[in-house]
């Protein structure tokens, strides 16, 4: 088993599988309703200026998240 990491620790372009969401309450439900949930595949598309915001791709949808929220997503990154 490889170690799991925070989504923000991945490099641009990395693909991964979500292992766990550490968000709570409404934020968790919002993420889940976007399809960001355990077992979903994500790809890190890139960062906004000053790296405060990230763009990810879940399924066929692109999603913008703040860094603080992306940190709550624990993933298992694919081997490069």
């Amino acid at each position, binding site marked *: 088993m490889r170690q799991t990491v925070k989504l923000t620790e991945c490099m641009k372009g990395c693909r991964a599988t979500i292992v766990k969401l550490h968000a709570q309450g*409404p934020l*968790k439900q919002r993420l889940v309703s976007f*399809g960001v*949930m355990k077992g979903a595949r994500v790809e890190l598309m890139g960062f906004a200026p000053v790296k405060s915001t990230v763009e990810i791709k879940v*399924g066929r*949808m*692109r999603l913008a998240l*703040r860094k603080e929220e992306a940190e709550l997503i624990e993933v298992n990154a694919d081997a490069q």
Partner: protein
Amino acid sequence: MPNSAPVCPVTEKHIRIALVGQPNVGKSMLTNAISDARLHVGNFSGVTVEKSEVFFDYKDYHFTIVDLPGTYAFTDYSIEERVTHDFLCNEAYDLMINVVDSTNLEKNLQLTAELMTMNKKMVLALNMSDEADREGIVIDYEYLSKLLGVAAVRVSAAAKLGIGSLIESVIAVHEAPYQEPKLVFSEAVEEEIGLIASYLDEHRFSAVISNRNIAINLLQNEKKTYRTLHDLPLWTELQPLLIEADRHIEMHHDTDDVKEVFAEEYAAFIRGVITETVRYTEQPVEKKSPTERVDDLLIHPVLGIPIFLFLMWGLFQLTFEIGNIPMEWIDAFFGWFGGTVGATIPNADIRSLVVDGVIAGVGAVVLFTPNIIILFIGIALLESTGYMSRVAFLLDGFFHKFGLHGQSFIPLVTGFGCSIPAYMSARILKNDSDRLLTLFIIGFMSCGARLPVYVLFTGAFFAPSVAGNVLFAIYIAGALIGLIAAKVLKMTAFHGQDEPFVMEMPKYRLPSVKLIWHTVLTKTLMYLKKAGTFIAGASMLVWFLSSYPHSHEIEAAYGAKIEQAADERAAAHLTVEADAAQLEQSYLGRIGKAIEPFFTPIGLDWKMAIALQTGLAAKEVVVSTLGVLYAVGEGVTETDKTLISAIRTHIPFASAVAFIVVIMLYLPCLAASVVFTREAGGIRYFIYLFLFTTATAYALAFLAYHLTLMVTGAPALLPH
């Protein structure tokens, strides 16, 4: 037996449809395609924030379609979600059309699964089939229908395909008895559902809904079902059963959150359905999609923001350059029109009312239609291409520093068109303090109706080559002041927690010319209609107040002087003076003189002060008032009669700067203020807004006035 049997000669058949779906799947566009309505369409999440009803007839049915705000899941956090949630739960409708984006079924069907437990008749409209074709997505509609137990129809709102079969299938579903959709859960959950359902069966419990569905709703903690069963005798035995079931399920899913459990269950179910029914002829392998390639440039971490600023600069440049080409013709037209109409009116007072009042006022507003059209086109492009969400993404980090939310960008940009939809659009912000903060600074984003004032003044004081830049600077300045104001408000009035930023970025879409044309046309017609009605009325009022009472003493005194004048030039000069004296003692002149002392420190004379006040009714009236005041004041001797040159000769530069600053910052118009008060939730917010904007406008205008005086070395305006 007379009067006993109810007589119903014509049975009219009504079908009331609720249009439900995730944001940006084309619900509003589909409504437009079905019924020729003109609902607002745009390529970002949260275009529709209020339900709207549309009516049409087909065969012998009357249809009502209720277009609802999009919602990702069946929740009620933000206002727009609440609108949908409350409608679906509490209002009467016969059937839902669940609109989904065929190119993203995995995400869209998640909501569908939730809706499937609601015991409502449902038709699935698989929209954007044109895009699905282009992306090589092949869907087996019949099999999908069969697997879900829901009628599924292939449509494209943009290409107007499948609209007929959608309506036919709505009628068929409406006429047939309700059929429960087929949801299949994992073994663990199915087992618990089975246990609870059979318990209900054993106790001969029966409702309109099947016991299986009741069991599902109970496990999901659905409030209404819970409440109903809670009061029944069988609850005492049912409750421990439920607790046990919850425990099993949570253990199985390794989480204590039922919502998450069910989301995972639905996702698994949907994945199964999609594997069976959807084929991808083009594998989305390593190849980049067109959207990704455009994004490489437009949301580039370094180039992104400069590109955005450049595009905005270009827009204002165009607004000025192209917008001003037809201006001369329009101006000439109204000049000619006023003259021609005036010649047919024998009575001098009525002639003045029509020519100096209505035609000058309306003409001053219509003059700027070309500029407004270009601005509207720009906003429509921003809204409909998908660029809007990108800019929100780019600016979020920056906005966050000022206490704003990245998604505030959407209402703020809408505010450049008109503040009213902008106030409504702030509903997309989930957090109330974010929303209020945004509401407070929307007014600092100069709306389309203020554009004429800016164009007029920049045109009067700057060479055409730089006027576009000045216009851009005015807008940027307004936006920056808005940001600073947000920071101040955030630190003082609206602390509150930071709301997470989670936003979908739609794919880029090339808007059809027709769509842009419709959007721009609708807004432009509204602008012109307002000019012809409201502005015309206001101009008459301003004309009346500035023409009466007529002083015979002044007339007599100047009449004598003019007769004794040495030459024609002197006589003309005296006539102008006489008109000015008349104007000063008119009703409006007296009011203006009374309030002038308050405006002298910021360099405004009474005419400008009056124009500002009339702007509270509607910003367009500022120009029309200036138009009337200068038309009335000038009499007929002025050789160059355009408003621009009148402004240039009569208003000192520093005063013009202060005037622009006030226009940029002071209270929005009456209609917008009403909407603001409603959206903010009370009159006290309006009072805050009034105090806040007035103080900001006055202080900054004072600063701007004196700074400009210092720089230009001109003398300050002195109290009379």
